């Protein structure tokens, strides 16, 4: 019983992550119709915002370790701790949340530069060209990060406050066996927050409608006096920020490295398309669906019955859904269907 509840919780947790990770892509790919293979790179850049901030916060005086000969080995004491003592330690401890403040403007810049400088010229180009250019960009970004930070994962601990486990079971009066990492719960809440915000922005303003219209027929929308390119950049910037934050908040769960983006790229595309092109709710639903199913498919009981199911579950589900529902869960008609 507890096992099931835990798995459900885990499914939700994964689902939230998938939904949030795919959200940025839904905006660029599902809404703007740009096949953005650089999405993973944005996700990764967000994560490295956290890395950068942490490195800045932990700038240290190097105390030489005399026991070591042949080369310089140091014990590092961050300036912050020297100057501020306890407070310094706390600040460093909170580096991940703090870096959000830095990441939002940074990712916005990245998004706008990317859109203005490159993607803008590809809205009306064939998808093939979009694939090549965004893939190229993704590689370039990756390699730059690799050259600066190396290829090895860089651990980013969550704040002490959030790093333990929470006794979820007790909360709902279901025994003490259902414990779950606090940070993952935070991430879940965070994804709800962001998804809700973006959703509200697109659904409850005319903005979403205009962008959708612009994607269907740029020219006509402009003939109605609307500066569609401006709105596209806004969406793109927003998408960059969302993708970045998704990556940033994920760092305590997954020590970031330059390649993490590519690892999530396929998953993101699957989520978006299974959700249905151009449908925000669809993508979110797909995220949770895939998360929960994957979680259950990974239980030993299931694996014993169908070995290797957990290896393919995501794709299996994707396939079944797309065969049963022509446009995924909630896809709009005519978006990238030919």
């Amino acid at each position, binding site marked *: 019983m*507890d*096992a099931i509840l*835990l*798995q459900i*919780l*885990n*499914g939700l*947790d*994964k689902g939230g*992550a998938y939904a949030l990770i795919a959200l940025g892509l839904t905006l660029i790919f599902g809404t703007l119709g740009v096949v953005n293979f650089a999405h993973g790179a944005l996700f990764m850049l967000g994560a490295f915002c956290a890395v950068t901030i942490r490195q800045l916060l932990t700038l240290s005086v190097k105390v030489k*370790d005399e*026991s*070591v*000969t*042949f*080369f*310089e*080995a*140091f*014990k*590092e004491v961050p300036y912050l701790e020297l100057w501020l003592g306890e407070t310094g330690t706390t600040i460093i401890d909170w580096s991940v949340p703090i870096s959000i403040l830095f990441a939002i403007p940074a990712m916005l810049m990245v998004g706008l530069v990317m859109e203005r400088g490159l993607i803008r010229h590809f809205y009306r180009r064939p998808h093939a060209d979009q694939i090549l250019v965004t893939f190229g960009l993704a590689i370039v970004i990756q390699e730059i990060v*690799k050259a600066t930070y*190396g*290829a*090895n*994962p*860089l*651990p980013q*601990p969550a704040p002490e406050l959030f*790093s*333990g*486990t929470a006794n979820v079971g007790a909360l709902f009066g279901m025994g003490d*066996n259902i*414990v*779950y*990492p606090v*940070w*993952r719960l935070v991430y879940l809440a965070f994804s709800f927050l962001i998804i809700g915000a973006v959703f509200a922005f697109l659904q409850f303003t005319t903005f979403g409608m205009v962008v959708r219209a612009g994607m269907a027929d740029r020219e006509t929308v402009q003939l109605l006096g609307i500066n569609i390119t401006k709105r596209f950049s806004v969406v793109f910037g927003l998408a960059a920020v969302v993708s970045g934050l998704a990556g940033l908040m994920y760092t*305590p*769960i*997954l*020590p970031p*490295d330059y*390649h*993490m983006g590519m*690892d*999530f790229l396929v998953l993101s595309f699957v989520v978006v398309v299974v959700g249905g092109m151009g449908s925000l709710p669809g993508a979110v639903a797909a995220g949770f669906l895939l998360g929960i199913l*994957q*979680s259950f498919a*990974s*239980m*030993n009981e299931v*694996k014993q019955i169908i070995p290797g199911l*957990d*290896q393919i579950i995501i794709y299996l589900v994707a396939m079944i859904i797309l065969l049963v529902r022509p446009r995924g869960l909630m896809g709009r008609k005519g978006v990238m269907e030919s």
Partner: protein
Amino acid sequence: AGAFRNDPTNQATVKLGFNVPQSGAYADEGADELRAFKLAVKHLNGEGDGGMMNTMKPLSLKGNGILGKKVEYVTGDTQTKSDAARASAKRMIEKDGVIMFSGGSSSGVAIAVQSLAQEMGTIFMAGLTHSNDTTGKDRRRYGFRHFFNAHMSGAALAPVLEAEYGRDRQVYHLTADYTWGWSQEKSIQDFTASQAGWQTKAAVRTPVGAGDFSQYITPVLNSGADVLVLNHYGKDMVNSLTQAIQFGLRDKQVNGKDFQIVVPLFSRLMAQGAGENIKGILGSTGWNWKLQDEGSRAFVKSFGQEYGFPPSQAAHTCYCQTMLYADAVERAGTFNPEEVIKQLEDHTFDGMGNGETLYRGADHQCFKDVLVVRGNENPSSQFDLLDVQQIVPRAKVEYPEDTYPGELGPYKV
């Protein structure tokens, strides 16, 4: 011996090929291997302080290259993919005319290029590969492994684990779902069972590169197991360990015992990736820069002075492999691989960091001391991540040559 491929006899120089991952997850490990290779070449050519050439014995090298020919090298990117690695190796052999190639950071790749080595008749001195298959069912006459393997990890760890965590533990294995993972899982199971009476509660296969392992960790929580063994390497290990610890496993009490996590195969780079989470975790490793024997010190000295930081175990094994090959050629007095192989087979040497070592002829596996290490609780420096818990003597980890049957293949190809 007749003609052989890329015979350098009537050339002034001899080319070696260093085939390491330069992109992908193991790029940093590959970079470190490459440093070691370059250092080895320097030393062979009589430049620098000579490194282990001052300590290895017996020693036939004269510091004038190999058989008096200056050593040159070419590099390539394996991308940690069998096809890419083979393509790169073929380039070295067909285009650059190397006489030997070395390197690599995964068993799959090692086995793939090793069989290529056999087909092409060019010696391959494997880099970092830990699967039993490399010198077991997939052994080749033209492939040699200096690194230790899963079997030895098990043999070395079991007694320490028993001493540290007691007998009759309930073990939960999370295992990377491919040959290396399986072979390590089996080795660990066998030894902990026979020596410490540990029972396997469950052994779960996880997809390679899963990223988030939470769905495999949640079932551990209430499974009644009190030890978690992570048969993962590289990125997967970094992630699964980080996440396992987030799930509070190490703070748990099960069956009245403290819950423990074991990572059978460690490396410093993995330790860096796992950060805080590695502290106090037990595992095995091939070599560590803090070893105080003269061979290790000599190597750490010249590597450290060259690059400003200590070498990794990957660097160590690659350096040794190059030296061992060169020395074998000197002894053979010819580059003819058949003769060189014969020289390497059943060669016993010392002074290279792992005590007296045997290159067993029957399977081309080196038998040497294995280190059991523990994640350092309070490091004295940024490199001081692993504490050498125990140096398990070679005798404890040796096994009969028919344990993992395989076919070396012919000398002549």
